[in-house]
């Protein structure tokens, strides 16, 4: 067997790697210098920390077309953002007897909070079904809408099938319901315009296609919408009162933030914006097309999700006939120096929808820094694994 001399990283849907050099430099210079307590003191290090965080907020607001950057709050990751969104609505906007619509492609970071509320807060849940190619059938939305539908939660890009949901169409048909979008896999690759898409809350993570460090993430919340914060505490503002500030971003940002991560994220977002989403998307589409084309020629490989690269993200789930998912992933890593992910990808409903529950799939996910040579190496390895 021919191991590749340098490791090939094809697990960008989990965390993107590598990061732009500028992100590393930003994180280390902050750690070496100004990573103190933003907004808590008048000295220049504190002010500089605040400035780094402010700049990241402004860069994200521009990327998502948020009219006011104070409507973006930082969290540790998209899971926290989705939890703030779902649990923060409970008892405020979401009451016993209310109805929620979500999709069969949701990650557990949406499904577990929703299932918890279903049991503990008498919320009912309907799921938008999925086509044979693993795409959300948005056309079914009107049939599922009820008078008491208070919330719609939808995954923009599936971390299992790579399918892209038409969130603009959902936003158009949401009526009086609130619309929460999980942009974990899409932010930094696909255009997201919170105004045009009628999004009330957008949850994103920093460490995937926005090219920031792990431990960075956040959400956008529409003007006029308030949630119950999951944590309260020091914000550096209104210090004379024991009541949590009622304005964003402070309302949702108690405690010393992850200045390092947020500073790195800001540089990642700037890298994405200056490269251009269209160019990033075109690159990933090209790699996806090459990979799909290659595996289509191999006997014994089943690919899940949309068959055309232009209709999907470069997140590709597959199975090799006669081999377990973990066996394939282990061989790729050990024998070929290729890193992918195997299993259920934290989305059991999505696996049920495409018929890969409970074994899961082998998932290749390509990012901005993968090359055509990487894809070719993945194809060669799969070919050998199929034959053995």
């Amino acid at each position, binding site marked *: 067997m021919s191991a590749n001399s340098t490791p090939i990283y094809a697990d960008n849907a989990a965390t993107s790697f590598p990061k732009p050099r500028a992100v590393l430099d930003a994180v280390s210079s902050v750690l070496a210098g100004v990573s103190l307590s933003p*907004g808590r003191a008048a000295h220049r290090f504190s002010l500089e920390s*605040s400035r780094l965080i402010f700049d990241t907020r402004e860069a994200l607001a521009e990327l998502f077309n948020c009219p006011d950057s104070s409507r973006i709050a930082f969290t540790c990751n998209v899971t926290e953002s989705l939890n703030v969104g779902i649990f923060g609505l409970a008892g405020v906007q979401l009451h016993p007897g209310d109805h929620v619509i979500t999709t069969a492609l949701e990650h557990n970071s949406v499904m577990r909070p929703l299932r918890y509320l279903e049991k503990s807060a008498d919320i009912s849940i309907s799921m938008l079904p999925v086509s044979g190619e693993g795409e959300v059938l948005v056309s079914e939305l009107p049939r599922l809408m009820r008078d008491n539908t208070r919330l719609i939660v939808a995954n923009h890009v599936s971390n299992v099938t790579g399918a892209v949901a038409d969130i603009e169409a959902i936003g158009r048909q949401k009526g009086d319901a609130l619309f929460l979008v999980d942009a974990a896999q899409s932010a930094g690759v696909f255009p997201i315009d919170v105004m045009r898409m009628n999004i009330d809350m957008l949850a994103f993570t920093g460490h995937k296609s926005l090219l920031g460090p792990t431990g960075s993430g956040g959400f956008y919340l529409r003007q006029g919408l308030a949630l119950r914060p999951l944590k309260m505490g020091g914000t550096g503002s209104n210090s004379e009162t024991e009541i949590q500030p009622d*304005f964003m971003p402070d309302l949702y940002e108690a405690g010393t933030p992850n200045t390092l991560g947020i500073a790195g994220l800001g540089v990642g977002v700037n890298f994405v914006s200056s490269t251009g989403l269209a160019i990033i998307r075109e690159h990933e589409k090209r790699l996806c097309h090459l990979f799909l084309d290659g595996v289509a020629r191999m006997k014994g490989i089943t690919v899940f999700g949309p068959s055309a690269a232009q209709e999907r993200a470069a997140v590709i789930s597959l199975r090799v006939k006669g081999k377990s998912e973990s066996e394939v992933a282990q061989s790729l890593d050990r024998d070929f120096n290729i890193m992918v992910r195997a299993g259920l990808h934290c989305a059991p409903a999505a696996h049920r929808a495409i018929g890969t529950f409970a074994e899961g799939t082998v998932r290749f996910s390509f990012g901005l820094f993968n090359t055509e040579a990487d894809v070719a190496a993945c194809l060669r390895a799969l070919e050998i694994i199929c034959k053995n």
Partner: protein
Amino acid sequence: MSARPGDNLQKLNSMWSPVKQTATCVVILFSIHFVLKAEKLLKRSGISHDVIPVPREISSDCGMAVEFSCLEKERVVDLLSSAGMRIAGLYRRDGKNSFQPLSQEHIAAHAVN
């Protein structure tokens, strides 16, 4: 990296120092985010200003405020209002440690957003 982390800020602060010969105004905003937003807007409009700790005489809050020449007061208030920013307080500096609150007309209620 030879530059020390504070160097830039020092440079910027000395560049932006308001003309101390004229009377200055101090605007209080709701948090550091809005102070930095105000700084960005003022900088873009070429209005010289300083970001200063909220004077103890105005509030015991541990935040920052923006100081600028009173000649620019209307422009600053217009800039901030048209960006949708709420002003928590507006003062004229009467002496080193003395501040006079200005009319409340521009000061938004501390409403829930």
